[in-house]
């Protein structure tokens, strides 16, 4: 059982990294990865939203959705939007500086596909409450890891001389491609087990 939980965590974090192998959450991945500190904090906020979403999704899956499967998407998205609203208020109260630094990307966590995907994957793989929580932690950590790595690369990239023609999004895409290539190396990690 414990081994199983560990496997879920590692798999969501590095092997099937949400951002680099499933292309989820790319908007914040490219939008907020300009500075290392901001990237880390957005990552932490995302982990928090993911954990709450996972809890709510387990609850919905047990009590409501068996009776009304067609409401799945609408339920999930409403839950996510409310959680994000809540996190936004907390951050605004506790750290106005961070609130300004995150700017538009904080409310946009709502439309971060990684979070909705988390709820959907959790449903389709029929995870239990604990498994779902571990999955959320792993996926959130993986997203944060990718975001921080990308921010580090981009901070370095600003100091080097990049040809004018690839500046901006094009070079970021190619950086992300290389990062994703590196993460593919984790693919064989658990193949025998």
């Amino acid at each position, binding site marked *: 059982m414990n081994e199983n939980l560990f496997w879920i965590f590692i798999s969501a974090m590095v092997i099937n990294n949400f951002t*680099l*192998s*499933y*292309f*989820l*959450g*790319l*908007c914040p991945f*490219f939008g907020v990865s300009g500075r290392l500190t901001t990237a880390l904090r957005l990552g932490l906020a995302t982990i928090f939203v993911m954990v709450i979403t996972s809890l709510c999704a387990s609850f919905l899956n047990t009590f409501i959705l068996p009776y009304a499967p*067609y409401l*799945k*998407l*609408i339920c999930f*998205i*409403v839950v996510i*939007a409310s959680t994000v609203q809540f996190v936004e208020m907390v951050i605004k109260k506790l750290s106005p500086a961070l609130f300004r630094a995150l700017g538009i990307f904080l*409310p*946009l966590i*709502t*439309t*971060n*596909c990684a979070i*909705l*995907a988390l709820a*959907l*994957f959790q449903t*389709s793989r029929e995870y239990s409450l604990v498994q779902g929580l571990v999955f959320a932690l792993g996926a959130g950590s993986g997203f944060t890891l990718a975001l921080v790595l990308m921010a580090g690369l981009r901070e370095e990239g600003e100091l080097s001389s990049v040809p*004018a*023609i*690839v*500046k*901006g*999004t*094009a*070079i*970021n*895409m*190619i950086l*992300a*491609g*290389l990062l*994703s*290539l590196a993460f*593919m190396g984790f693919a064989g990690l658990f193949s025998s087990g």
Partner: protein
Amino acid sequence: MAQGDSQHVDAARISQEFIKGIWRENPVFVMVLGMCPMMAVTNSAINAVAMGGATAFVLIGSSLLVSLLRHHIPKQVRISTYIIIIATFVTVADFSLKAMAPTIHKELGAFISLIVVNCLILGRQEAFASRHPTRLALADALGMAIGFALALLCLGATREILGSGSIFGAPLFGEHYEPWVIMILPPGGFLMLGVILLVFNWLGQRSAARRQAREALRAEGVIR
């Protein structure tokens, strides 16, 4: 917004709103929106077409509804209202595709549901459909949908040709072709989009340079 603004909408304006989504403000190549579904499903041309069609349905349907309801939606809850409208259309698209093309639905998996959080769709509701009369909103949605679908097809076809040596499942090169497997794997999506954006940057820079050269000549009186 003035009452009765729809009377001022002429055909030229409609076609202008339609064209801009396809090229000048192409959602993918110029504005870089809606990337998540784009890269995840473009490992073959047929998936790209299915995704493009589903997105087009949702975008056009919700633009129409939002634009019709634009005087009735309270400002404070507009985003939630848009999301619920979009989620409704996505549910319809999801169930229809499941019934009509189960294999494709299985291959696209969760990504059909994830159209809900495609920033392109929410962005068009907030930036355009909620402020313009229905005909303009429809033209805009149609243009954006076609632009998005074309971009998907462009990426999907390139990745399929390079990565599997086929197009729409039909082999292209004969059996001596060694496919670039990396192109249908995740990194290929990032690399290919990077290359396409690079080409777009190059085209943009070239046309800017030409415009500048022409204006310089005009200033000297060489051409008129």
